[in-house]
């Protein structure tokens, strides 16, 4: 029983960064912007989170630094694509490349140093409930944030006027602009929200998942988060489900390696990436579902005429 609970616990820990980064990107894409820089923002969040935690001794300051770094770094993408109308695919790619390089440089002094770990939050009484208690009420603080964030984004996008406006911008920026909506301003805020989320996800990696700094420690999670948004056809609760499926694959292959299953460890390690491809193919086969949910102006540059 305990083993099952422990495995489920680790699945939640593996799923949390994917969930947070994907939820952030979902909001960005709902506003019609495709930011392929998730991996770069995530790794910048990871190095900032580790660094701030290591230097101040407080993982909480690390957490804030990770969020701030993600948001500030995404601003670079926002200025380029929104104010200068550059190609979003290429700009997002360059954000990832720059992030991987910058983080590697900033982190040279942190390699091999012991990091700060965010303590788990045990909610009194509730944690004592057998099985479910530890699972739902004895997790790291970012786990709770991730669940709350998913619910909040769901509510925001589909139950508030501002959310409706954001979605309308994603579907047709020209119409939204004609109605007098500040398209660029909304998109700036959406991109920065996505950046903050990616930064937080990175902070989770270096403050909770493995409290240390390893170069390229995001290991493609930012890209998997991007795939999750497509897989979820831009629905928050499906992102939640997808993130936990991928968390399970990630943990499953680690456990399989530990048990010494007679399969090359490299094959097991590549499972999350192969699973991403399979899942993308399965979802894109359903053309109607994808077509109906894809924000219509996703990835197209917008220059307001006067």
């Amino acid at each position: 029983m305990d083993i099952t609970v422990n495995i489920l616990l680790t699945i939640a820990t593996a799923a949390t960064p994917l969930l947070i980064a994907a939820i952030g990107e979902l909001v960005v894409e709902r506003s019609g912007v495709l930011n392929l820089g998730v991996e770069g923002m995530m790794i910048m969040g990871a190095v900032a989170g580790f660094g701030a935690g290591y230097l101040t001794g407080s993982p909480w300051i690390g957490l804030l630094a990770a969020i701030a770094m993600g948001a500030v770094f995404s601003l670079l993408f926002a200025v380029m694509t929104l104010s200068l109308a550059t190609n979003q695919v290429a700009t997002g790619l360059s954000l990832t490349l720059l992030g991987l390089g910058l983080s590697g440089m900033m982190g040279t002094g942190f390699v091999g140093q012991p990091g700060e770990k965010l303590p788990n939050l045990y909610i009194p009484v509730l944690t004592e409930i057998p099985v479910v208690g530890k699972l739902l009420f004895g997790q790291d603080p970012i786990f709770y944030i991730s669940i709350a964030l998913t619910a909040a984004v769901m509510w925001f996008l589909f139950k508030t006027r501002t959310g409706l406006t954001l979605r309308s911008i994603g579907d047709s920026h020209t119409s939204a602009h004609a109605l007098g909506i500040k398209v660029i301003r909304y998109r700036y805020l959406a991109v920065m929200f996505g950046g903050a989320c990616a930064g937080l996800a990175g902070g989770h990696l270096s403050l909770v998942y493995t409290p240390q700094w390893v170069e390229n420690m995001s290991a493609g999670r930012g890209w998997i988060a991007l795939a999750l948004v497509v897989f979820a056809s831009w629905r928050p609760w499906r992102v939640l489900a997808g993130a936990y499926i991928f968390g399970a694959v990630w943990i499953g292959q680690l456990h399989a390696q530990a048990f010494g299953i007679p399969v090359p460890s490299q094959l097991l390690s590549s499972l999350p990436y192969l699973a991403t491809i399979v899942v993308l193919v399965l979802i894109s086969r359903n053309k109607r579902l994808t077509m109906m949910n894809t924000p219509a102006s996703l990835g197209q540059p917008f220059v307001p005429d006067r």
Partner: protein
Amino acid sequence: MMRLELVKRPQRSMLFSALSPFIAFGLTIIAGAILFALLGVNPLNAFRIYFIEPVSQVWQLHELAIKAAPLILIAVGLSVCYKANVWNIGAEGQFILGGIFGSAIPVLFPGFEGPLVLPLMLLFGMVGGAAYAAIPALLKTRFGTNEILTSLMLVYVAQFFLDWLVRGPWRDPQGHGFPQTIQFNDSAVLPELMPDAGRANWGFVFALIAAVLVWLLMSRLLKGFEVRVLGSSPRAGRFAGFGLNRMVFFAFLLSGALAGLAGISEVSGAIGQLQPVISPGYGFTAIIVAFLGRLNPLGIVAAGLVLALTYLGGEAVQSALGISDKVARVFQGMLLFFVLGCDTLIHYRIRLVGMALTKGAAKLEAAPKLKEAR
């Protein structure tokens, strides 16, 4: 509060089209100077070590050619993809598969020697890269799966596959357990161009040939026109009877084959055996090369040399100043950013507008225009 405002030019500016890579390079230098200053290094001294010293002797120029060859080969292929609006970002994986396929000959048949070995290896390398690139192409055309994500995921898979090969079935039994294959026999090694002067091998010549051929293809042949039409307007392309799916395959197979050729040239020429890591991120850096070269094969040759220099410079500042060689990746990333930003100048004029003034100013400007219109 100031705001940027883009004003569309009536036609693309030839001036900025030519100037933008240079402006971008200049801006990168300025940003780099700030970066070095922040690291507590005299920027002038750092630039001398970064950009001048690595190319001040002949043998160093050979090293530059070794680094530039794969970048140019890959970027030339990618330029066709990006012109066609096909987003292959998995060239790193296709490079690795090219290296693996080509190496199959000297690793599995170490006794096979003669003049046939190398051509066969190069051919296998191209087939390997193209076959690997065919996966995202097939998934995109059959199921409409996003090629950006699939081609990238395949990079990770390729890295693990190579790792497994050199630690498992292809490991050199006499290699003291090191994760590497046997050293290739002499007829499987890409010859050096001028062995007396430096290490540069035929890979660089392949890169130049590929650049010229693809340039001819894109500017002189119908296929190149097809690529450009389908890239800028798929609808217009369909009316002209150009097949979108065929184009996706064409772009992926061509870029995959070139990346594969780069992979086997690197393994056979510069390394001489397979090892767990055969590329310092050439497949990703080539994306920057493609854009810096304005997606033009001849521009890519120049851009490839510049980016190759950033690799050498990174190694130089690491050994001379003790700065992380990651500084190279930072330079590369900044360069791409500035190139993309400067490209905006080709299509738009940029104006700074005071936020508070805009509303009133817009009215004032609009009034005389109306009069003129009458």
